[in-house]
């Protein structure tokens, strides 16, 4: 451990002091003087035509300030989509309108029909119950394939049907891939589902709109992973508020996992209504509302085929996926099953030909968007499952089959348009075999068998594209945004620093890790560095936190801004020591003149910057504050190998995870303790997906798993004590820190490991089971064993 607490030190998370002692300041902790409350009347049917909404009785209820309906929002914009996908015929995706409050039709259970603003939340709720909404229920479409049948009910009447897009990638490879399959010695086919999930952040969503009628300034406090993105989307596309009159504040946020990236109707409503009623308007989601309004994740139905030659080399890969968009296009929904999914289908393997087809489908369900991993877990799951199935069909060791097909030379241009800059998949697999003690598996299996349990081993690899993303590239792919990150470094006269970052921390530990970077560069105590984030009023335009991008992109912006600071500080130091700027060295917080014993301290220089009595005023301005924007020139490619050992109770089908080992290559590590925590959390969510979690709709579009009575979240006793290792580090070659990102790895890499392990356990027990769809609940496993 570095003695200075800089890069590589496992510093304890400074933000945890307030989080663990109840001193965090979340959006719901904010109360604005004079605030009113809103309650949304939400559709309880999945699909219906709105004949009328009679608000007269509600308007007359005690405490009611105003009742809003869809008609109040006809003059403003709808909720925008931030990514346009072009289909395989060159046509843009179908993009439906998404009004703030429903207009004409309701399209999913939870779609807001009307909203009551009242003095108290109970009064608003009482009045919402008095609204008479005359709605003719229409047949709902829930199943994606049924939604694409001729004559299926249309979610959006003005679209040609329920197909959002039919995407082919790489379309030019389609025929060549087909030929490779014709020529294959062996083809393995697997049909599977990637189960629909609900993020279930500990903090439900909250929004407070505030309007100053004297200045015309709007403020939105909201539970967001990216306040600047919300300001831009809501201001420019929905409400027509210029950015200089709109401030968005996302204070402490209690988990996001993707679900708080997106711009939601409730944010626009509170901002709009605050001006209309000239009162601050606050909304706090109930947990029940969160289930039916937070964007859901995953929900893919996939057929994947792997072609191999006679020597078991992968020769081609072909996938066909149906991806559920839900009833409307959430902010980044179209990108998830396409560019965040198709580009990862090569995985860690040399497969020369790949074709990915994705049909995105509208259904009468909650919109689906990015959830921890976003497209990459779906790619990894199908690829690592089909490789496992192929190994079993061919009678070869699943690890050996993977090793045989590993990419071993970097940079490596995949047939799906990305270039891996660096990696060492052999080393991570070697490390995994060591830390997972795979050599001891047979003995543990015998022990389990003696206890009447079936033990299985599942191993897989993963790769992900993080550090999202080069703006010029994503612009070509349909993103309606740049994906740089920003930082302003402000040095105070007495030497302390404030770093204002466009990233947002909602559990990632930025307030601890980012200072380690600055402290390392200057050679000072990280406690001299403070991080400010989450408020558009005092941070530079940033794109926020998702896609494991904060350190790779946001951290790089901090490095660039700090470099500017150091360069200017050296000029000041040179002046103070009457030396040449080129001879100034900075080490351990001291500026010295090379080859002499002259030196000045960091604090002497910063003081001179603000008290410029002896200062090169003719050359440089006083003050010490610099801003940098960093736009990466490639994605980063973290990769790893995971091993899961399960026990299956043959009497009940219950799966318990006995061991789990993760060998990850995240490049350079700034704070290994935080990295461990990120991996642990990701593994917990991945295991949750594999064994427990699933959003289930019935055929009428009612969410069956709409509470914790039926939606199973992983708990502490569902997960084992993990063994994690990130010593196999191949630093990223194109960002200044050499970092790759670690936030999503666990959730991406672990589901296939769990399923591979359960299938292994059942096959070793002589069961003819090749696949079970997640979640591997006891009843599903038992059914698979007892068809």
């Amino acid at each position, binding site marked *: 451990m570095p003695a200075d607490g800089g890069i590589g030190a496992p510093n304890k998370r400074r933000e945890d002091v307030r989080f663990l002692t109840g001193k965090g300041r979340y959006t719901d902790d904010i109360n604005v003087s004079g605030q009113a409350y809103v309650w949304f009347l939400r559709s309880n049917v999945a699909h219906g035509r709105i004949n009328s909404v009679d608000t007269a009785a509600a308007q007359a209820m005690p405490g009611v300030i105003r009742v809003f309906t869809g008609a109040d929002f006809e003059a403003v914009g709808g909720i925008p989509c931030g990514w346009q996908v072009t289909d395989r015929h060159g046509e843009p995706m179908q993009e439906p309108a998404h009004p703030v409050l429903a207009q004409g039709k309701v399209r999913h259970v939870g779609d807001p029909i009307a909203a009551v603003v009242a003095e108290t939340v109970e009064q608003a709720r009482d009045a919402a119950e008095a609204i008479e909404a005359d709605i003719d229920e229409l047949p709902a479409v829930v199943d994606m394939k049924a939604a694409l049948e001729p004559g299926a009910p249309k979610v959006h009447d003005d679209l040609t049907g329920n197909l959002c897009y039919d995407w082919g990638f790489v379309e030019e490879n389609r025929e060549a891939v087909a030929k490779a399959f014709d020529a294959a010695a062996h083809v393995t086919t697997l049909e599977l589902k990637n189960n629909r999930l609900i993020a279930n952040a500990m903090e439900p969503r909250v929004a407070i709109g505030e309007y100053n009628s004297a200045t015309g300034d709007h403020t939105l406090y909201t539970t967001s992973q990216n306040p600047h993105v919300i300001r831009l989307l809501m201001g420019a596309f929905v409400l027509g508020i210029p950015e200089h009159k709109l401030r968005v504040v996302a204070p402490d946020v209690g988990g996001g996992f993707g679900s708080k990236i997106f711009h939601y109707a409730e944010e626009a409503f509170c901002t709009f209504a605050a001006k209309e009623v000239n009162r601050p308007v606050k909304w706090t989601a109930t947990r029940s509302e969160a289930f039916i309004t937070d964007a859901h994740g995953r929900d893919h139905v996939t057929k994947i085929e792997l072609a191999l030659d006679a020597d078991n080399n992968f020769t081609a890969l072909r996938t066909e996926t149906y991806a559920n968009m839900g009833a409307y296009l959430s902010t980044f929904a179209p990108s998830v099953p396409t560019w965040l999914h198709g580009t990862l289908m090569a995985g860690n393997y040399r497969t020369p030909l790949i074709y990915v087809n994705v049909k995105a489908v509208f259904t009468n369900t909650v919109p689906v968007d990015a959830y921890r991993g976003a497209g990459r877990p779906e790619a990894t799951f199908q690829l690592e499952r089909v490789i496992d199935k192929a190994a079993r069909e061919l009678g070869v060791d699943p690890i050996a089959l993977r090793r045989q097909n590993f990419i071993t030379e970097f940079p490596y241009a995949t047939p799906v348009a990305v270039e891996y800059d660096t990696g060492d998949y052999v080393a991570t697999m070697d490390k995994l075999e060591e830390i997972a003690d795979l050599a001891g598996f047979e003995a543990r299996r015998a022990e389990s068998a003696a206890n009447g349990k079936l033990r299985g081993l599942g191993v897989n690899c993963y790769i992900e594209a993080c550090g999202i993303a080069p703006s010029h590239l994503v612009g070509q792919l349909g993103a309606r945004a740049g994906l740089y990150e920003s930082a302003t470094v402000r040095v105070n006269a007495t030497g302390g620093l404030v770093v204002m970052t466009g990233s947002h921390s909602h559990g990632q530990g930025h307030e601890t890790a980012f200072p380690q970077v600055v402290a390392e560069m200057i050679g000072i105590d990280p406690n001299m560095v403070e991080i400010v984030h989450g408020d558009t009023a005092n941070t530079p335009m940033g794109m926020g936190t998702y896609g494991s991008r904060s350190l790779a992109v946001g951290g790089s912006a901090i490095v660039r801004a700090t470099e500017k600071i150091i360069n200017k500080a050296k000029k000041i130091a040179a002046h103070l020591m009457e030396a040449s700027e080129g001879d100034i060295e900075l080490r351990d917080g001291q500026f010295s003149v090379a080859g002499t014993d002259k030196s000045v301290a960091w604090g002497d220089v910063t003081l001179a910057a603000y008290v410029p009595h002896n200062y090169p005023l003719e050359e440089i301005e006083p003050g010490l504050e610099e801003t940098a924007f960093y736009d990466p020139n490639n994605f980063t490619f973290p990769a790893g190998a995971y091993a899961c050992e399960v026990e299956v109770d043959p009497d009940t089908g219950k799966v318990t995870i006995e061991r789990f080992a993760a060998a990850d290559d995240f490049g350079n590590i700034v704070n290994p303790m935080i990295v461990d925590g990120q991996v642990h959390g990701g593994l917990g969510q991945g295991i949750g997906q594999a064994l427990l979690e699933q959003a289930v709709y019935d055929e009428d579009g009612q969410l069956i798993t709409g509470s914790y009575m039926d939606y*199973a979240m992983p708990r502490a006793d569902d997960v084992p004590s993990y063994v994690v290792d990130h010593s196999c580090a191949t630093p990223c070659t194109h960002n200044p820190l050499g970092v790759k990102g670690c936030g999503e790895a666990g959730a991406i890499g672990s589901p296939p490991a769990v399923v591979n392990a359960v299938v292994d356990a059942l096959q070793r027990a002589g069961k003819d089971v090749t696949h079970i769809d997640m979640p591997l609940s006891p009843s599903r496993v038992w059914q698979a064993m007892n068809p």
Partner: protein
Amino acid sequence: MYDFDFERPATLADAVAALKDEGATALAGGQTLIPTLKQRLAMPERLVSLAALDELKGLSASGGVLTVGAATTHAQVAGQTDYPALAALAAGIGDPHVRNRGTIGGSLANNDPSACYPAAALGSGATIVTNAREIPADEFFSGLFETALEDDEIITAVRFPIPDAAAYVKFEQPASRFALVGVFVSKGSGGVRVAVTGASEEGVFRWADGEAALSADFSPEALDGLSVSTGDLIGDVHGGPDYRAHLIGVLAKRAVMAAG
């Protein structure tokens, strides 16, 4: 929640009188009722709290019978040593918050089809004592959330004959951790009882075939080859009727093994 009047009578007689009001609902530990109110799924005009009734408090064992006051919390039942199988069952209900607020009387009166206590009462051959009468467990549970209680009838205590051997084995529903299936087995002076919770659309029930087999031979093997009719069994996202039927057999064997 909606507005309601709140009353906290000091005597059982006052509580019974208060419950005669149409629109009045008894509030025991509130572990089901309060969440229901918060979600506006119930709209009682008046809540009659049973928290101040001394008549409902206390645990005592004598003559081979454990008497548990209706207001006794799960945590208190878990702490008694006279009936270990019942203590173990109570220790496995919910989480610490639930166990320190929820009461045995409230649980039995609610008769949730996935609750644990109904299995203990029926599987022990307990007697439910109310302000008006004594009701054998066999006559108490009458369907999903239905019991023999009248609207103004309050459970005051539950009398458990302490069996020679007993055990409860619960297989948890993964989300709620209520019983997906729970089986309570006992063997005592009244014979062998096997009560099943979580599995049936009709609520807790006795598995007659299992009882007959175990009466002849109180061993796990005695249950080999027996099957449970899936007719009334619950099917949901956590398991179909056939799975629940299978679990009844598995858990009954495990309960017999645990009972020793």
